[in-house]
């Protein structure tokens, strides 16, 4: 929650950012890690999936301390550009890579230093789940995974030793619904614009992600088939926005949301019965005792993926500590922690070791729960007998249709999106 962001604050932050751009060449941040001291890692990221438990476990296992620098997805990207020395490790999304890599602010990550590299899920490395190709429209991780060298600013089309990010977590997103208020099965993205839900639908007001959900809807309605939803032409953007502007003018949407908590409020209060949603928001609605389903849809999911990167100035002991942290992260305990929140760990076999068999069956295999399913914080998420929305890992990740994306026509898209909000 940003509180009290006024125009004055806006001006301040904007100019601070500009100042940082101007001074980036001159100011070298002080390294946070001092030899011999207990190492501290400044971790830049949204940290939505990180709790105190992770910090504690990390310190117990490795003696490394983490200091979180929590920002929103877009702000994380901005920080990498404008203050590349303000963090030691960054947790970023793959769809930012087409923007970030050419700036040269991130280091190519050496896969030889990652113990579990060979166990990283094929969804990242090959774009496959269980040997089958999955949708790769948009900025699929495999497209922006490999670099031509450690200091390269170009992507390699074939696997190399150096990668942009070491994958950590990913998921398949879909629409969230209130089954108790809709009272009938929902099976298509097209339902978002169904007049039946007039005044009770919502979509997120983050252009780069909202446009993907919009494209899924337009395609599901049979209005247009995109060659690549994740990289639209100007005409395709116009067409998509036209359909949404008409829907907005006719009062289809109750509200738009841009903050995770807003989506929870909209759904929990019943203002909205169908909307774009993220999996932790579904969990948050459910823990209030309100029924909410992360509805699998026949057109498939919109997926996202995140990983760890290091600033290009990292070297020596600082690099050693960061790699040690990443290796610990992928060694299973965190993987299980992520899986229990409904995300997926990038290294599945290690995560399995830290999960109970009944948890594994529920979260990964799509089997009915044989005991109550608890969140990592100990809140009840599902009762005995319930099945995870969308089922198993293979049926969810296998049905990915597209990935969060950065388009070539990004600037135009943002402008058209603003036009829709103003219409």
């Amino acid at each position, binding site marked *: 929650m940003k509180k009290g962001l006024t125009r004055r604050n806006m001006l301040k932050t*904007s100019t601070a*950012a500009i*100042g940082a*751009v101007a001074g980036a060449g001159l100011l070298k941040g002080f390294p946070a890690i001092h030899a011999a001291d207990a190492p501290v890692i400044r971790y830049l990221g949204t940290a939505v999936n990180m709790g105190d438990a992770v910090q504690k476990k990390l310190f117990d296992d490795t003696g490394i301390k983490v200091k979180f620098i929590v920002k929103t997805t877009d702000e994380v990207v901005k920080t990498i550009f404008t203050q590349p020395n303000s963090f030691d490790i960054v947790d970023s999304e793959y769809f930012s890579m087409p923007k970030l890599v*050419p700036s040269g602010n991130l280091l190519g990550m050496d896969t030889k230093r990652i113990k579990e590299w060979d166990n990283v899920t094929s969804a990242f490395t090959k774009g496959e789940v269980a040997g089958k190709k999955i949708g790769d429209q948009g900025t699929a991780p495999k497209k922006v995974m490999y670099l031509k060298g450690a200091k390269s600013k170009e992507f390699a089309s074939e696997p190399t030793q150096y990668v942009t990010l070491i994958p950590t977590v990913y998921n398949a997103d879909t629409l969230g619904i209130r089954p108790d208020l809709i009272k009938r099965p929902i099976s298509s993205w097209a339902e978002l614009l169904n007049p039946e839900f007039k005044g009770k639908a919502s979509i997120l007001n983050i252009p780069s992600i909202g446009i993907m959900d919009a494209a899924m809807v337009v395609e599901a309605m049979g209005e247009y088939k995109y060659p690549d939803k994740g990289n639209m032409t100007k005409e395709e953007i116009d067409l998509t926005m036209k359909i949404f502007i008409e829907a907005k003018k006719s009062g289809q949407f109750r509200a738009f949301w841009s903050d995770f908590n807003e989506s929870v409020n909209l759904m929990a209060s019943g203002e909205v019965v169908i909307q774009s949603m993220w999996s932790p928001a579904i969990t948050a609605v459910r823990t209030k005792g309100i029924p909410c389903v992360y509805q699998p849809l026949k057109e498939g999911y919109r997926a996202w993926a995140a990983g760890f990167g290091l600033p290009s100035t990292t070297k020596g002991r600082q690099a050693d500590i960061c790699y040690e942290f990443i290796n610990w992260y992928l060694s299973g305990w965190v993987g299980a922690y992520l899986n229990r929140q409904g995300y997926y760990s990038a290294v599945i076999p290690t995560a399995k070791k830290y999960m109970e068999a009944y948890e594994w069956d529920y979260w990964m295999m799509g089997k009915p729960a044989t005991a109550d399913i608890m969140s990592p914080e100990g809140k009840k998420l599902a009762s005995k007998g319930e099945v995870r929305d969308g089922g198993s890992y293979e049926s969810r990740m296998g049905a990915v249709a597209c990935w969060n994306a950065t388009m070539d026509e990004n600037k135009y898209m943002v402008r058209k999106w603003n036009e829709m909000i103003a219409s």
Partner: protein
Amino acid sequence: MKFLKLKPSVGLLSIPYSLIFVFFFFIPLALTFIISFWDYNEYSIIPDFIFENYSYIFKDCFNFQKDMCVTFKTYLSTFIFCFITWFFTLIIGFFVAYFLAFYVNSVTWQIALFLLCTIPFWTSNVIRMISWIPLLGRNGLVNDFLLSTGIIDAPQEWLLYSGFSIVLAFVHLYTLFMIVPIFNSMMRIDKSIIEAAYDNGANGLQILWNVIIPLCKPGIVIGSIFVITVVMGDFITIGIMGGQQIPSIGKIIYVEMSYLQLPAAAANAVILLALTLLIIWIMTKMIDIRKEL
């Protein structure tokens, strides 16, 4: 020439403030202005001198065959919110201040009631806004009450995520900004002036109109400047209370900044600043605050 003798120390005393002013106000503002003429790409801003950022804002704005452009639409809606909010905060603020200043005689009570006005500010702005949702929502208290009394037979949707809820939140949030300066002006009014008006046979309304309001003008203008500048740049209230469906310049700037289109955001900020300053300039033309203070 007493003044001249004092000058060195006066100059010295003003250094700290001048430095703060230069570093945290003038330089950032100048940078914003300069960068609004720069070029940019996906990941960096490029020193240049182009008008593209400005022409982009006004693209299609002067083609009157088409619908109104985004920029004009957004400013129009912002101006309307500004005016309505200003009107209600002024009316409510004036009478609250009037009550505090003239009907509450003990200073203790004045302070106590004044503190009461600030209670809404003890919680965060965002929480105050979100609290409207259970009240005004489809299943909220207001709709429940109206339904149960039979005044309406279906939930009223315009109560929330509408222009109405935005104005309601603005008035709730910013009336205090009117109360404080108007109250301050009223406290400076010499009571004997009012007594003199009475003695000359003026009635209550005449005193209010011919004596109190003219003497409160500086407070009214200062309060109005507060309210108008805050509403002009707001995007959090419009976002939350309007369900993100109603545009605001602040939101456009925010989105541009998140996509690192800093020069475009700077250009928008410069225009917003210019317009806001213009409004304030007009208001100060109407009344010379410096003289009145």
